[in-house]
């Protein structure tokens, strides 16, 4: 799209002019000066980042932005959101337009290296799947030879799709549309046989956007690993640490049974780990360059990981997702916080 070119040129110009504000010092100083965290999110993916009718953003990705704001300012509302398409997201982060990219972005080697990003711990373990209309009578992804597949461009999804069909020796016809709404419309109008994206996103699309959710099934195969999490610019370790440990703090809190409801009582806990986490024993906050109450503020205003998960994508929401690999390591999942000490 032409606006896209202009945006990209603008970004190039922004990089060219040095974006001095963003790189004047560590990102934290710039953020403190602004008084808010600028966070890049999805343009609308229920459960992960979606604006409601009043323009309030909700979702798992959104909550981690709020958690970072709570850690820095003690106020989960000190965030401004920039909705970004898959195509815009990296240049927006590189050029300093946003401070954190929290937009169901897959952590990959190339992105971690040549794209100049640093990934904070994974906040959601996902995998790419396929959705088809029930009327097609397909029950497995191995039966998709010759299918037409709707996919959004510029994502790992597009690459995994090609890899999967190549590996299985099958053919497919891609329909690549950038706009989220247009690609959904194309699938639901029958332009494609198959829709592919991350399984969680697909559950969200089926439950909230399908004309009749029961007409569509999600095939059992997951064809990739999609660790999704927030990313920051390479080269600012201080800010990277803050984002990283904010995620760990929500996991540590869940593991230790600290949640937004009992966090005040937990201040009096005798458990030394909880004391360090909540700042009753000082030291951790200072190490991060933050207030000692940083983690307390995160948990008090946003909640621990389990609360964030259940509130946005859990079994009681429209997405109805089980914890699965997103359970704590103590419950057989992959979620593991590094020791807060």
């Amino acid at each position, binding site marked *: 799209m032409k606006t896209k070119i202009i945006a990209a040129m603008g970004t190039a110009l922004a990089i060219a002019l040095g974006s001095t504000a963003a790189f004047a010092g560590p990102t934290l100083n710039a953020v403190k000066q602004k008084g808010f965290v600028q966070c890049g999110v999805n343009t609308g993916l229920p459960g992960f980042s979606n604006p409601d009718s009043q323009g309030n953003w909700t979702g798992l990705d959104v909550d981690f932005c709020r958690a970072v704001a709570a850690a820095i300012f003690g106020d989960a509302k000190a965030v401004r959101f920039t909705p970004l398409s898959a195509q815009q997201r990296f240049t927006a982060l590189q050029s300093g337009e946003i401070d954190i990219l929290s937009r169901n972005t897959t952590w990959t080697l190339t992105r971690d290296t040549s794209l100049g990003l640093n990934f904070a711990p994974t906040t959601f373990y996902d995998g790419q799947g396929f959705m088809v209309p029930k009327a097609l009578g397909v029950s497995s992804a191995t039966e998709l030879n010759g299918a037409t597949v709707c996919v959004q461009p510029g994502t790992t999804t597009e690459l995994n799709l090609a890899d999967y069909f190549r590996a299985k020796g099958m053919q497919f*016809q*891609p329909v690549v549309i950038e706009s989220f709404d247009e690609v959904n419309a194309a699938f639901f109008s029958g332009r494609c046989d198959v829709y592919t994206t991350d399984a969680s996103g697909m559950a969200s699309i089926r439950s909230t956007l399908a004309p009749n959710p029961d007409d569509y099934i999600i095939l059992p195969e997951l064809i990739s690993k999609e660790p999704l999490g927030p990313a920051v610019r390479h080269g600012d370790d201080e800010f990277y640490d803050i984002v990283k440990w904010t995620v760990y703090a929500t996991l540590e809190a869940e593991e230790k049974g600290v949640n937004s409801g009992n966090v005040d009582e937990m201040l009096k806990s005798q458990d030394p780990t909880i004391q360090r986490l909540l700042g009753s024993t000082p030291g951790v906050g200072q190490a991060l360059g933050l207030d000692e109450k940083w983690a307390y503020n995160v948990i008090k205003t946003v909640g621990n990981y389990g609360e964030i998960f259940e509130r946005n994508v859990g079994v009681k929401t429209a997405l109805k997702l089980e914890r699965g690999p997103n359970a704590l390591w103590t419950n057989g999942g992959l979620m593991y916080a590094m020791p807060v000490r």
Partner: protein
Amino acid sequence: MAISTRGPGSLAPQAPRRSLINDPNVRAIFFQILVLGGVVLLGWYLVSNVLENLARQNIATGFSFLDREASFAIGESMIAYSPASSYSQALFVGFLNTIKVAVLGIFLATILGTIIGIARLSSNFLVAKLASIYVEVIRNVPVLLQLFFWYAVISESLPGPRQALNPVPGVFLSNRGMKFPGLADDPIWTWVGLALVAAIVGVWLLARWARKRQEATGQQFPVVLASIGVLVALPLLTWAAGGAPTALDVPELQGFNFRGGINISPEFAALLLGLVIYTASFIAEIVRSGIRAVNWGQTEAASALGLHRGEVLRLVVLPQALRIIVPPTTSQYLNLTKNSSLAVAIGYPDLVSVANTTLNQTGQAIEAVSIMMAVYLTISLGISLFMNWYNTRIALVER
């Protein structure tokens, strides 16, 4: 310009000795050097800043990514392409797709625009009014909306492949596109194509010879009949010489979709339709104004000479109108070509779509954007050069 105003016969006294500061020529050169220096400095500042910032953020630079495997699929391609091909091949596929839609679009928009433009001048009330409604509605609605409209019309109104419409045997209309039988692969088709090109060249030479002969001797030669003969006979003979293959590649429903035959995808159809209809409305106005600009007296004079209506238009009015029509039409051709980049919104894999994907998969924003800019600049300058050449050719020859 003080020097040139002093004519040879002027009585002005000997010019006083000027200092260099007051010499306008020196001043002009000085300021131009200053501006040029400023531009160069600014450019150097921007480039060095980009490189420094990219290096600081650990972002790779350079065009070496072009040789890497693209690993993404492209919906339609005029050359062999698979996800195992390189980024440069992917970009070339996108480039060819852009060219395809631009060339076809320019061709069709010119025809449609000329028809509508002439229709607006029609003495038939209904025809003239319909043409003006077309122009006013179409050129006042943004082209992006029109693309969405046509794409929605095609993908929503047509049935799925299993219920495809079958208006004529072998032709299938579905939301996967229009499928129709193509000629089965045979080496002779390449030769038939070459024969057709040869025939076109032959016709051109024939027309030239016929005109020269008429100018010299006054004798007319049945050029039209002979041309049709050559155009039909030469490819037909080649085809017959190749064993006259008649095998057709008929589309068949297999699994999810049709196999075989020729396909026009909904994305391509919607883009072409949108661009042609939109641009034609502007061309129509250009054609109308061009024809109106030719004095009515010319038409009357030509009629008085006994020319038919068609001959009046072809020999008297159009040659004069073309001089007015061609330059603004060039702009419309450029607009159509550049608007084809809106393809990304409806999923047609044009250059911008492929380059955007490349940009995103590699993170090479500056490189990808500069490739896009260079390609569009080249295409636009090419169209411009061709149209300028054509404009000079048809320009009023002053003796």
